[in-house]
């Protein structure tokens, strides 16, 4: 199957509506199955980019509000939605919601309801509206770290016009994780059909679980959905150790091999100007794909 990629001009100047940021700012979003390592990857990616002197904004879009925690040494920063609930959205400033973390990364947590009540998706929409009103969506790179499943329109918010233009799917070689990634590819394909849509797939990041042939499997999956594996992150104990110290690997073990892996990822993502409209697999295709790769 031929891979069709969209090539952006090197410094695209998006024509954002209503006075939104007009800088050649890079906005990316990480999606993937719950527990696959999106937040760890996002935090290390942000840390590595910030080390290079870039102005980074990382926005956690998950009621669990733990996306940026390793960047702020394990503290729980107030969430946008808690502040809205306590004060009403008229009495909130940028300083109330944006917190500086490692290497100056600016951190925001959307937050949301307790599990089992309310509407977390609407919470993401409210968060984005407030951040826009506060003119907080700026910097060299914005990293949106979104909860595992795009269960409703609210969680597709970062993919809408004016926000992330590049989506990165984080997956391991495990089937359930591939399956979730394929579902998100469906959301991207659907949204890309909308008029003026700028959202497309930047690539697949393999966050390895140390399964045999994992890189090949994820590479093939990426190829089949009309994308490519942009980085392979090997499993490393240092990630867990750093997490116990409530730090990113970049901060805790800057000389480690794993830190080098995240810096490579950061360079690749920052320099990436090739994206594609994904062609998600059908259910039966994904099942036969599994049979090809998994030794029973």
């Amino acid at each position, binding site marked *: 199957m031929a891979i069709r990629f969209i090539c952006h001009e090197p410094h695209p100047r998006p024509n954002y509506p209503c006075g939104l940021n007009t800088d050649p700012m890079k906005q990316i979003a990480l999606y993937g199955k719950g527990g696959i390592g999106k937040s760890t990857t996002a935090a290390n990616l942000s840390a590595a980019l910030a080390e290079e002197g870039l102005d980074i904004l990382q926005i956690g879009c998950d009621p669990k509000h733990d996306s940026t925690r390793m960047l702020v040494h394990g503290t729980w920063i107030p969430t946008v*939605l808690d502040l*809205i*609930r306590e004060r009403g959205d008229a009495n909130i400033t940028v300083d109330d919601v944006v917190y500086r973390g490692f290497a100056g990364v600016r951190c925001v947590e959307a937050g*949301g*309801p*307790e599990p089992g*009540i*309310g*509407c*977390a998706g*609407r*919470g993401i929409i*409210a968060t984005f509206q407030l951040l826009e009103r506060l003119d907080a969506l700026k910097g060299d790179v914005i990293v949106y770290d979104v909860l595992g499943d795009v269960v409703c329109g609210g969680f597709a918010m970062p993919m809408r016009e004016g926000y992330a233009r590049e989506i990165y799917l984080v997956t391991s070689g495990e089937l359930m994780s591939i399956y979730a990634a394929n579902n998100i590819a469906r959301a991207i394909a659907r949204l890309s059909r909308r008029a003026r849509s700028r959202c497309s797939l930047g690539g697949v990041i393999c966050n390895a679980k140390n399964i045999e042939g994992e890189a090949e499997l994820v590479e093939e999956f990426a190829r089949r959905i009309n994308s490519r594996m942009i980085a392979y992150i090997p499993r490393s104990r240092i990630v867990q150790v750093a997490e116990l110290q409530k730090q990113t690997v970049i901060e805790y073990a800057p000389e480690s091999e794993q830190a080098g892996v995240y810096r490579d990822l950061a360079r690749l993502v920052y320099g990436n100007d090739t994206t594609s409209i994904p062609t998600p697999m059908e259910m039966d295709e994904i099942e036969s794909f599994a049979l090809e790769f998994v030794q029973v």
Partner: protein
Amino acid sequence: MRSNPSPSSSSRFEGCTLTGALSVATEVRDAVCVIHGPAGCTHHNFSLLHATSLSNDRPALPRLLSTSLVESDIIFGGEDALETALERALALSPASIFVLSTCIVETIGDDIAAVCAKDRGVPVIPIPTAGFLGGVFETGVKNALAAVASLAPPSSERTLSANLIGEKNLEYGVDENAAEVSRLLKRLGLPVNLRFVRGIRTHDLDRLGAAAVNILREPALGPIGEELKRRYGTPYIESFPTGLGGTCRFLEEVGRACGIDTPAAVEEERAYQAAMLERFDDIAGSRIRFQSPHPILRGDPEVEAICTECADALSLTIDPEGVAIPSPYPPPVGTGGIGRMLHRWRVLIRDRRRG
């Protein structure tokens, strides 16, 4: 809308489910209705109920309370707001509280039944009224009737009397229609036991099971008739009487259900109808044609049959060139309803004669 709307055409068959339910629940006069949703849902219905009660010369402020949800309640869940509103409702010392849902709280899955289940000293009854789930005005009416019925005791001593079930509280002629049915029942010696639900108090529901027969307002209320029959063994008549012959048949049906002899009552009613028709002698022989009362309403065969029956009784001729007569909607109730309908026909026929 009609270019010349009249109060009698204020049917709200396909309206909001919440409005349908409130048209019933607010008629329990010592209850408070808590509407769990944005303030606008309550305001809109308050205005409508108030305006309708004014136009029926029955000024009454409906006792509505809103949980007044805003976006953060939707995001974090509205159950706390419902708790707070219930406290406010209790402060009004109601005999019962109804909690009505709206589209948005059903969308986010607030567990209203669980909040209502807490013991608060007065019954707190949830009524599901989210319209987007496929309901219309009538669904709300049925859900509310079932909810109000749940306040009635499981049994009560039978008396020779009748209940009126599910009167259309927002229709212009609601009290005239009830009076007409009550007049007919009197011919059989049956008093009205309970208007379920119109202008009652919570403890009046103790009598719900006491009637010998339930008279449903219209056949669509069949499930309510069945439920009351299951609970109390009360037989039901599926509709208020319509048409000249239909009104006599109604007397026979009610008589059968209650074991009352009817020939004398039917004979009296026939004579009453003949006297009523005589008053319209002046339009006998006129040419008329029937037209739909509203472009979106299709012809109702039952209504057409009643119109044709009346036209025959007055020797009116149906003619495409005749005076345009809007078909009534809903059909007129009893002999009295037909009398009022013929009065409107006469006005239209005279207008045409004057040119």
